[in-house]
């Protein structure tokens, strides 16, 4: 308990908030690693996931590759990429590792979101005369959004935790304190930074949960495929709309 209090005391100590390695700087770096990696992963994974989901082709390949990517040990991957890409490209190596870790969840969210849509709905959209492009944008994308955002949430959580390792190759982030405290035996510093990473993860998850509520179409309601992390939002949507005139 003392250690825990020490850790909290370390977090709120005045020197945390000044200088070139203040909490704000490290937090900013950590957020930057996370946000940028997830963004790049989204840009790569969503079009591929949509293509797989829309055509129904290539799913086995995607599942196989995603499974393999998930199984990669993140620490080992970062070190390997630094060795392969060279020590002068450390940031690129770290980002590559984070992106590789983030892609599987987002890819799965993108195609699972499409696959969860009832075939009858797609069939009806085509039968009334929507082009494939219109089916994609007006039917599949909005209806697949809950699962896609769920996938992005998983990816963000994974990257925010793994981004701690960026400090090991000297890139900063909240892991800076952990790797600085480790050889010095500064357990208050290590625990304090760990708590901050955990809190950051919770905050990011909550923020994305809020996104889900804002972006999930209201009519996508009860009775349909229950999906990852969306149940409360849906139940709420139903209560709100069913009392409307």
């Amino acid at each position: 308990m003392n250690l825990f209090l020490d850790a909290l005391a370390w977090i709120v100590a005045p020197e945390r908030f000044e200088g070139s390695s203040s909490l704000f700087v490290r937090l900013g770096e950590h957020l930057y690693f996370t946000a940028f990696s997830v963004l790049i992963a989204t840009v790569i994974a969503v079009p591929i996931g949509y293509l797989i989901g829309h055509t129904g082709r290539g799913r086995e390949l995607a599942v196989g590759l995603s499974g393999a990517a998930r199984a990669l040990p993140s620490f080992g991957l970062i070190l390997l990429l630094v060795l392969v890409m060279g020590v002068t490209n450390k940031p690129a190596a770290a980002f590559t590792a984070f992106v590789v870790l983030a892609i599987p969840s987002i890819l799965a969210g993108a195609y699972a979101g499409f696959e969860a849509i009832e075939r009858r709905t797609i069939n009806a959209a085509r039968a009334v005369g929507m082009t494939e492009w219109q089916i994609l944008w007006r039917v599949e994308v909005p209806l697949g959004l809950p699962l896609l955002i769920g996938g992005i949430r998983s990816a963000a959580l994974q990257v925010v935790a793994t981004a701690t390792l960026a400090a090991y190759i000297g890139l900063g982030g909240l892991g800076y304190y952990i790797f600085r405290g480790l050889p010095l035996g500064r357990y208050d510093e290590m625990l304090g930074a760990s708590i901050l990473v955990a809190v950051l993860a919770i905050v990011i998850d909550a923020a994305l949960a809020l996104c889900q509520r804002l972006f999930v179409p209201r009519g996508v309601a009860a009775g349909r495929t229950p999906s990852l992390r969306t149940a409360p939002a849906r139940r709420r949507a139903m209560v709100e709309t069913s009392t409307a005139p």
Partner: protein
Amino acid sequence: MIEFTSVSKRFGDGPLVIEDFSLVIPAHKTTVLVGSSGCGKTTLLRMINRMVDPSSGTVEIDGTSVLERDPVALRRSIGYVLQSGGLLPHLRVVDNVATVPRLNGVSRADARARALELLDTVGLDRSLASRYPAQLSGGQQQRVGVARALASDPNILLMDEPFGAVDPIVRAELQQETIRLQRELDKTVVFVTHDIDEAFLLADQVVILEKGGRIVQKGSPSEIIENPANDFVASFIGVDRGARALTIKQTPHGRVLVDDAGRTQGVLVEESAPARRSEGSLP
């Protein structure tokens, strides 16, 4: 008029689902394709709006082969109703109904105004317009599906087992509504069902299909009940049993018709007026 000429279909290298099918579907009439599952009736229906293309043979609408038309434009010009409405769950009722006019470039305001009129046409209260499909009953969803199909005022209406998922009471109500709509709107309706009673109730022309899309018999409901082509048809339509096998019973007040179960189904009067739709167990 829709005309099928020697149409065959196989999916991939599977067996023939439709084998040398020919049929004329007259304009402004209701034609019902009826048969057990797997007889190819839905495949035939979907050939009309190019959801399926025939492997050989032609499907023509008013003398023009559908293969010469762009599938998307063709589908927008034909109303399509399917089971449970096939509505888009993330759009409000009014926007579901307005889907096709919107795709055709009609302004949102005009499309919505037209959609509200159509809700009246299909007997739905306008207050439902802002609801989502999941908030409607099965029967209401089905009506929305019909309104959507009518939105661009198509000449042809395709209905693919539309009432299969609703309970019998609602189904009877929707069937009556379909008859009323057809009287008012005078479309060319092609209706697919496995329910022979539904077929007899709605059809001007009934087409009974067997596996491979083979036509066992076609004709008006009266023609088929009066003269079933073979034992298959007789047993499929049930002329020898149940509510369609009527016997005359003498009562002190005149002669009545009694069904298989001994229930009185009607009164026999002299020179009964229009014979059409008066036979059988119809409500």
